[in-house]
C-alpha cells in the first residue's frame, strides 16, 4: 500500500508537469572526522545517527558527511572493528548549518562497553554568513507562552513584533494583510516570506499580502529567521525569510494536549460600553440608558424597516432587551497533537487547534467565531535512499465584517442581539498541501522534488441584500434593527508549485546546490462596500478582464438582469429574485481568474576551508503576466484613464469605439515581463575560538501586489445611488447595478509596474564572551527601490465643470534604512536562559510624495472637435447602459471655448506645462503633446508633492526590542516542603515586547527640544509612545505514570500597559507631542467650552491584561 502511495505521488509529480523551484532548506548536515586517540584518521569507520538508517563511512582521511539530517537533537555512534564504540549525545542540528562532530576511538582488543560523550555545539555558529536566528523545538516546548510561529519570529532582532516585516521599524506601515484600502498610497508587497517545509506560505496575489502561516505550535520542529541576506534559493521577497520545519512522527507514539481557559474581564481601556457617561445626553443631562424606567425597558420595535409605525413589518420585539455583558465572557482554547508509526516505514504527525476567545469590545459575537487550524505530515521511507513526505496546513476562520462601512458604533448598538451584524459574516479558508520526494543518488549527491498547491479563499455569507438607513429607537440613539450595509467579498487565489533542487557535496569543503521553480498563480477578487448612502459605494475587482470580455454574455449568450424591488420606499435590485446570472459582470467573474507565471532558477555554492565559510549564489527570476491586459470598459471611457494608460504602456492607441457595443475593440497591451538577476554573497570567518565575523550582500526582487498590477477600483460619484435603473424598466443590468459610470474616483493597476528591489549589506559579529553568554551585533544598510507609489491625475472636465480624479501606480517609492541589531543571550543551563534584543533604525523614506507626481489635464477645443471626448451619453433603452454620443458642433464650439479658456489660464499663470499644439506658439520652449503618445491636444501640468523625510534627528530613531526569560527546573529538583518538592518541574516564562509608536506629522509653532529650541516652520515627524507588553507563563508539572500533566497560569499584557492606536503617517496630531495629550484626548479649552469627557476607548486599542489557566499534558 505504501509503495503504491509512493508510486502514485511520484506519478502525480510527473503527470502534472508544471515546474517550479524554490527549494527551501529543511534539513541540516553533520560532518566531522573519525580518528584514533593519536589523531590518525580511521578510514572505513562507520558513523550512524542512532535509531535511523542514516550514516556514512569515513574516507581515507577519516572525514565523513551525512546530508539531509532533520533539525533537532540526535545521538550518533562511531564504530570500527578493534575500537571501542563511541556515542555522542545531544548533537544539535540546525537547518542550513553544518554540525561538526568529531570522534576519537580507542583501540581495544576486547569488546568494551561503548563510550558515551556529550556533544557541544560551538559557542558561535561557524557557517553563519548572514544574520540568522533560530528557535528549536526544545525552546518552543519550554516557552509555551509564545503561541505561534509569527510571535516567535517577532521576538528575533530586526523583525517587527507582529512578524510581518524586517528591518523597517515602524516607518513603513502599510504592509500586511487587511491594511491596503482605498486610501493606501503605496501598496507595498510583503517584505517577509514564510515557508513551511520548504513551501512558500505568503503571497502577493491579492489586494494585500496574504500572510497565512498557520502552523500549530505543537507541530513546529524549528523556526529559522533570516533578516539579512537569504541564500540564492529564495526569491520573490524583500530580504527576509522565516523557514518553519514541521515535526515528523517517530517510531513511538506521542501525544500532546492543552486546554486553556480565559478568565472573563474587561478587555479595553476607557469607559465600559454600558457606562451612562458615554450615553449622556448633553442636551438634557440625562443618560440615554434608563434601566429604571419601565416604559423605556418595554419599548417595542414598532417602526420596522419601512420606518413607519403600525405597519406589517413591525416586529414588536423589545428594543432595549437587557444587554449581554461583554465583560463577563470567558474563553477557551484547545490544542493537541498525536504522532507515531504506521507500519515499519511510515510515520505521521498531526496537530489541531481551535479557540473561542472573548471579544475586546461589544460585537455581534461576544466570542470569536469558529476557527480551526490543522497541520499534518506523513513520512514514507520508500527505500533507504528515497524518502517521501506528504503534508499540509489548513486553517479556517469566520469573522463578522466590521468594516469601516459597517462598524457598529461604540455603545449605540448595544441592544442588538448578539450574532447580528449588518455586514454579515466572512469565512476564510487557507490550505497548503505538498508532496516532497528526496532521492539520494549517493552519500553525497541528492535531488529533491516538491509539488505543492496552496489555496486562499474569502467569502462573505449571510449578507443582507441591500442597504437601508439605520432604524433607531424612539430616542433616536440606540439601534433598533440591524443596520444593513453592502459589504460583499469573494476572493480566491490558488498557486501551484513544482520545485526541483539538486545538491551535491562536491568536495569536503564544497557544497553545491542548484534548482529551478515555477509558480502558477490564479486569482480573482471582487469586493463591494457601501454605507448605504449616496456616493459611498466602492467596488474592487481583479480578474481577467480581457478573457471575460470575450464572453461577456456568459454561457447562455443572454445579458442577465436582476429584478427590482421596492424597500423602504427605495427601488433596489433583488438578487434573490434573480435567475441565471452567468455573465462575468455578475457571478461568472470566478470563471476568469487572472493567471500569471513566475519562474526562477538559482545556483549556489557553500565553500568551507580553514574555518572560513563563503556562500555565493545567483538567482534568475522571470515573471510572465499570462496574457494581455485590457482595461475594463468601465475604465476606458474616462479620458484621463485612457491617456495615462497610453502613457504607461508607452503605446499610442488609435481609435476607440463607444462602450459597450464592441468592448473587444478596446486595445489590449502586453504587460512588462520581468527578468531579474539577484546575486547573493556571504562570508564568515572566525576571529577567535569564541567569536566570528560575517559580511553579506544581496539583491532581492519582490513582485508588486497583484492588485497593483491587475486590480481596478472605483467609487460612485457624489450623489449617485448604488444602483440606478437608468432606463426605468424595473430591472438592473450589471452596468446599472454597479452604479453606472458616474465615478467620483478611480484607481487602476498597471502591468507595466516593475518588481520592487532591495539591496542589503551587513556586517555582524558574534561573540561568546563568557560561559554560555553570547552577544551578536549587526550593522546593516538596506535600500529599497521601485516600490509602487500612487500618483494622482485630475481631469479638468470642461463639460461638467468638475475635476475628475484617478489614481494609478508607478515605480517611484524608495527608502533606505541604516540599522544596528543587538542581541545578548544565554543558553539554557543552570535552569535558566534569556535573550535580549534591540534594534535601532535610522530611516529615510520619500513616503509621502518624494517622487510622487500629480498631473492635471486640460483638453483644448481641438480635442473636443475630433470626437475624442467620452462624457456625453444616451441611455440604451434595452440594457440601461450609457451609449457614447458625439458632441454637436454647437457643443464643440461652446465647450471648446471654455476648454481653451482653462488652458489659457494655466499659461497666464506661468505654470509649467506640456502644451497643446494649438497653444504651442505661446510657450515656445514647452513640450508639445504627451511625450509617450501621439496626442497633441491635451495640456498637462505636472508637479510633484514634496516628501517628508525623517525622522528629523537621531534621537527619534525608532527602535524595537524584546526580552525573553526562562526559568525551568527538572523533575525532583529543590527542597521538599510538606512532602512535596514545590520547585520541581517548574517553568516560568517572561516575555517583554517593545514596539515603537507609529509616525505622524506635526508642526511645532514654538521653539522646543525637537527643533533644538529654535523656531522653525518645517513639519516634523513624531512617533507615538513606545508600547511595552509583558507576558507571563508559569507551569508546574506532575508525574502520573507515563503521563506528565502540567497546570499553568498565563497572563498577557501582565502590567496592563497601554498601546496607542496606530496613526497613519500622513496625519497631523499636534496635541500629542506638544502637550503630551493622547490621541482623541480633548484639550483643556475643549473641556472648558464643551464639557467634553475623555474616553480612552479610542485612544488605546490594545487588549488589557488577560488571565488564563489551563492544563497541558504530553505522553
Amino acid at each position, binding site marked *: 500500500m505504501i509503495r503504491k502511495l509512493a508510486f502514485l505521488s511520484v506519478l502525480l509529480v510527473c503527470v502534472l508537469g508544471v515546474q517550479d523551484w524554490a527549494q527551501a532548506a529543511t534539513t541540516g548536515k553533520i560532518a566531522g572526522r573519525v580518528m584514533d586517540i593519536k589523531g590518525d584518521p580511521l578510514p572505513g569507520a562507520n558513523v550512524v545517527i542512532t535509531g535511523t538508517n542514516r550514516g556514512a563511512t569515513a574516507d581515507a582521511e577519516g572525514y565523513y558527511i551525512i546530508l539531509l539530517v532533520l533539525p533537532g537533537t540526535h545521538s550518533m555512534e562511531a564504530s570500527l572493528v578493534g575500537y571501542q564504540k563511541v556515542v555522542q549525545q545531544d548533537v544539535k542540528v540546525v537547518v542550513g548549518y553544518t554540525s561538526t562532530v568529531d570522534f576519537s576511538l580507542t583501540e581495544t582488543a576486547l569488546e568494551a562497553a561503548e563510550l558515551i560523550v556529550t556533544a557541544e555545539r560551538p559557542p558561535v555558529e561557524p557557517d553563519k554568513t548572514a544574520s540568522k536566528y533560530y528557535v528549536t523545538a526544545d525552546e518552543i516546548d519550554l516557552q509555551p507562552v509564545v503561541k505561534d510561529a509569527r510571535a516567535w519570529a517577532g521576538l528575533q532582532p530586526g523583525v517587527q513584533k507582529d512578524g510581518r516585516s524586517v528591518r523597517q521599524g515602524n516607518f513603513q506601515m502599510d504592509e500586511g494583510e487587511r491594511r491596503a484600502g482605498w486610501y493606501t498610497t503605496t501598496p507595498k508587497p510583503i517584505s517577509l516570506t514564510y515557508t513551511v517545509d520548504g513551501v512558500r506560505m505568503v503571497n502577493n496575489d491579492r489586494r494585500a499580502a496574504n500572510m497565512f502561516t498557520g502552523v500549530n505550535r505543537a507541530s513546529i520542529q524549528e523556526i529559522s529567521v533570516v533578516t539579512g541576506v537569504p541564500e540564492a534559493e529564495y526569491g520573490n521577497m524583500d530580504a527576509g525569510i522565516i523557514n518553519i520545519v514541521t515535526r515528523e512522527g517517530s517510531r513511538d507514539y506521542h501525544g500532546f494536549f492543552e486546554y486553556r481557559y480565559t478568565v472573563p474581564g474587561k478587555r479595553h481601556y476607557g469607559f465600559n460600553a454600558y457606562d451612562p457617561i458615554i450615553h449622556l445626553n448633553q442636551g438634557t443631562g440625562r443618560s440615554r440608558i434608563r434601566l429604571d424606567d419601565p416604559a423605556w425597558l418595554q419599548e417595542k420595535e414598532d417602526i420596522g424597516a419601512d420606518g413607519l409605525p403600525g405597519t406589517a413589518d413591525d416586529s414588536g420585539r423589545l428594543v432595549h432587551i437587557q444587554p449581554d455583558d461583554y465583560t463577563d465572557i470567558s474563553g477557551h482554547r484547545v490544542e493537541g497533537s498525536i504522532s507515531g508509526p504506521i507500519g515499519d516505514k511510515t510515520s505521521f504527525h498531526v496537530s489541531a487547534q481551535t479557540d473561542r476567545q472573548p471579544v475586546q469590545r461589544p460585537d455581534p459575537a461576544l466570542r470569536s467565531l469558529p476557527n480551526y487550524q490543522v497541520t499534518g505530515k506523513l513520512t514514507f521511507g520508500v527505500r533507504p535512499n528515497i524518502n517521501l513526505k506528504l503534508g499540509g496546513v489548513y486553517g479556517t476562520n469566520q469573522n463578522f465584517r466590521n468594516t469601516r462601512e459597517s462598524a457598529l458604533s461604540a455603545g449605540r448598538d448595544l441592544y442588538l442581539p448578539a450574532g447580528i451584524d449588518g455586514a454579515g459574516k466572512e469565512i476564510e479558508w487557507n490550505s497548503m498541501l505538498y508532496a516532497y520526494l528526496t532521492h539520494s543518488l549517493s552519500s553525497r549527491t541528492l535531488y529533491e522534488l516538491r509539488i505543492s498547491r496552496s489555496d486562499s479563499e474569502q467569502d462573505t455569507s449571510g449578507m443582507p441584500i441591500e442597504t437601508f438607513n439605520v432604524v433607531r429607537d424612539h430616542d433616536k440613539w440606540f439601534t433598533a434593527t440591524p443596520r444593513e450595509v453592502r459589504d460583499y467579498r469573494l476572493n480566491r487565489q490558488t498557486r501551484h508549485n513544482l520545485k526541483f533542487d539538486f545538491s551535491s557535496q562536491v568536495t569536503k569543503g564544497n557544497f553545491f546546490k542548484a534548482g529551478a521553480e515555477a509558480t502558477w498563480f490564479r486569482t480573482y477578487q471582487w469586493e463591494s462596500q457601501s454605507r448605504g448612502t449616496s456616493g459611498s459605494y466602492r467596488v474592487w475587482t481583479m480578474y481577467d478582464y480581457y478573457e471575460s470580455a470575450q464572453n461577456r454574455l456568459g454561457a447562455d449568450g443572454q445579458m442577465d438582469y436582476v429584478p427590482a424591488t421596492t424597500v423602504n420606499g427605495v427601488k433596489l435590485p433583488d438578487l434573490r429574485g434573480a435567475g441565471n446570472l452567468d455573465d462575468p459582470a455578475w457571478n461568472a467573474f470566478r470563471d476568469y481568474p487572472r493567471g500569471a507565471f513566475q519562474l526562477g532558477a538559482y545556483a549556489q555554492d557553500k565553500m568551507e576551508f580553514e574555518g572560513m565559510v563563503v556562500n555565493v549564489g545567483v538567482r534568475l527570476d522571470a515573471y510572465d503576466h499570462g496574457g494581455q491586459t485590457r482595461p475594463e470598459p468601465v475604465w476606458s471611457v474616462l479620458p484621463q484613464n485612457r491617456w495615462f494608460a497610453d502613457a504607461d504602456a508607452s503605446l499610442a492607441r488609435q481609435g476607440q469605439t463607444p462602450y459597450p457595443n464592441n468592448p473587444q475593440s478596446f486595445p489590449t497591451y502586453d504587460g512588462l515581463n520581468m527578468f531579474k538577476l539577484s546575486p547573493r554573497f556571504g562570508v564568515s570567518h572566525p576571529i577567535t575560538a569564541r567569536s566570528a565575523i560575517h559580511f553579506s550582500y544581496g539583491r532581492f526582487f519582490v513582485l508588486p501586489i497583484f492588485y497593483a498590477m491587475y486590480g481596478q477600483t472605483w467609487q460612485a460619484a457624489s450623489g449617485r445611488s448604488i444602483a440606478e435603473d437608468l432606463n426605468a424598466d424595473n430591472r438592473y443590468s450589471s452596468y446599472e447595478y454597479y452604479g453606472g459610470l458616474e465615478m467620483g474616483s478611480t484607481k487602476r493597476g498597471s502591468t507595466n509596474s516593475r518588481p520592487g528591489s532591495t539591496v542589503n549589506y551587513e556586517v555582524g559579529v558574534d561573540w561568546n564572551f563568557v560561559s554560555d553568554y553570547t552577544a551578536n551585533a549587526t550593522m546593516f544598510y538596506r535600500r529599497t527601490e521601485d516600490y509602487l507609489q500612487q500618483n494622482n491625475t485630475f481631469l479638468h472636465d470642461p463639460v461638467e465643470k468638475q475635476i475628475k480624479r484617478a489614481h494609478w501606480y508607478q515605480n517611484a517609492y524608495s527608502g533606505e534604512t541604516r540599522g544596528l541589531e543587538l542581541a545578548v543571550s544565554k543558553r539554557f543551563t543552570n535552569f535558566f536562559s534569556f535573550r535580549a534584543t534591540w534594534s535601532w533604525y535610522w530611516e529615510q523614506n520619500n513616503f509621502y510624495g518624494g517622487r510622487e507626481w500629480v498631473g492635471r489635464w486640460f483638453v483644448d477645443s481641438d480635442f473636443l472637435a475630433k470626437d475624442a471626448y467620452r462624457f456625453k451619453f444616451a441611455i440604451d433603452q434595452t440594457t440601461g447602459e450609457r451609449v457614447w454620443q458625439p458632441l454637436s458642433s454647437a457643443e464643440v464650439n461652446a465647450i471648446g471655448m471654455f476648454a481653451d479658456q482653462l488652458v489659457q489660464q494655466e499659461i497666464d499663470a506661468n505654470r509649467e506645462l506640456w502644451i497643446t499644439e494649438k497653444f504651442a506658439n505661446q510657450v515656445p520652449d514647452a513640450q508639445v503633446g504627451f511625450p509617450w503618445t501621439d496626442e497633441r491636444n491635451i495640456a498637462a501640468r505636472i508637479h510633484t508633492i514634496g516628501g517628508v523625510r525623517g525622522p528629523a534627528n537621531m*534621537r527619534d530613531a525608532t527602535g524595537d526590542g524584546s526580552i525573553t526569560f526562562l526559568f525551568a527546573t527538572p523533575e525532583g529538583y529543590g527542597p521538599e516542603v510538606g512532602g512535596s518538592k514545590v520547585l520541581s518541574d517548574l517553568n516560568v516564562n517572561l516575555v517583554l515586547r517593545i514596539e515603537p509608536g507609529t509616525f505622524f506629522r506635526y508642526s511645532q509653532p514654538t521653539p522646543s*527640544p525637537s527643533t533644538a529650541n529654535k*523656531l522653525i516652520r518645517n513639519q516634523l515627524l513624531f512617533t507615538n509612545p513606545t508600547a*511595552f507588553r509583558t507576558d507571563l507563563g508559569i507551569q508546574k508539572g506532575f508525574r502520573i505514570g507515563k503521563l506528565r500533566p502540567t497546570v499553568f497560569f498565563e497572563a498577557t499584557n501582565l*502590567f496592563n500597559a497601554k498601546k496607542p492606536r496606530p496613526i497613519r503617517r500622513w496625519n497631523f496630531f499636534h496635541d500629542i507631542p506638544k*502637550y*503630551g495629550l493622547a490621541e482623541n484626548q480633548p484639550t483643556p*479649552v475643549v473641556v472648558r467650552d464643551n464639557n467634553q469627557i475623555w474616553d480612552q476607548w479610542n485612544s488605546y486599542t490594545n487588549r488589557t491584561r488577560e488571565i488564563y489557566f489551563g492544563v497541558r499534558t504530553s505522553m
Partner: protein
Amino acid sequence: MKRGIISVVCLMFFALPGNSYGDAHGQDTGVVGKVGLGLSGNFNFPVFGMSDRFRAQEAFGLYFTYARDARNTLEVEFHRTRFDPGKIQEATFYWPEDKPEEWQKITSPLARNYMTVNAFTINGLYHLKERTGGSDGVTGGPFIAYGGGFYHYKNSVSGLIFAGQPNLGGGIDTTLELAPFDDTDVAWGLNFGLGIEVLASDRAAVDARARWNLLIGELRQMESYGVARTFPLHYFEIGLSVKYYVM
C-alpha cells in the same frame, strides 16, 4: 539634600546590629551559606533625560541576602525612590503660540511633577576576593553587583497652565490647566555596579555600592514646555547598606 543625608546616616546607625561582632566567636564558616536581611540607604541621581526632569533624591531599600559561596551572593531586593519635587515648575512656554511677535515666556508656578519608583529586583554580587569568614576580624573586599527585575514607576504631572490656549485679549488664563496625568507602568530594569563589602563578623556586614539602574520605560514629552521624551530611564545610585545573617 542635607536632611536626606542625615536620614540615611541615622538609619544606617540604628540598623547596625549592636552585638554582631560578639556573635561571631566560634564560627568558622563565616557568612557563606547563611541567609540574612539587609537595609540600604541610597542617593539616586537621575541621569540623561531624567536629569532634565528631576534632582537627586534619597532612597531606601530592603533586601534578602543569601551568601551562596565565597564568591557569590544572591539578593532579592526592594527599593523605593521618590523623585520629588521635579523641575516642571521651572519650565517655560511661549504664549500665544501662533503669534511670535507677542510671545511671552510663561511658567506654571503651581505645576508639580514627582515620580516614584518601586523596584523589585534579583541581584547577584560577585566578590572579587573570596570571603574567608568574619571570625578572624574585620575583612572585606570589592564586588561586582548586577541584577534585574521589575521597576514600577509613576510619573505624575499636574498644574501646568495650558500653553495652547488662544489669546482672547485678557492675557493668559492661568486657571486653564492641563488635566493632571501620570505615566505609570512596570518596567523591566537592570542594575550594574561596583561595591565594597566589609564583614564585621560572621553575621554582620556593611557594604557601599554604586550602581547604574536602567529602566525600559518611557516618560511622555511636552514639547511646548521644553520637555523631551525620556526613554529609557536611568538613574545612578550610591549607597550604604548593612546586613545581618540570621541563619
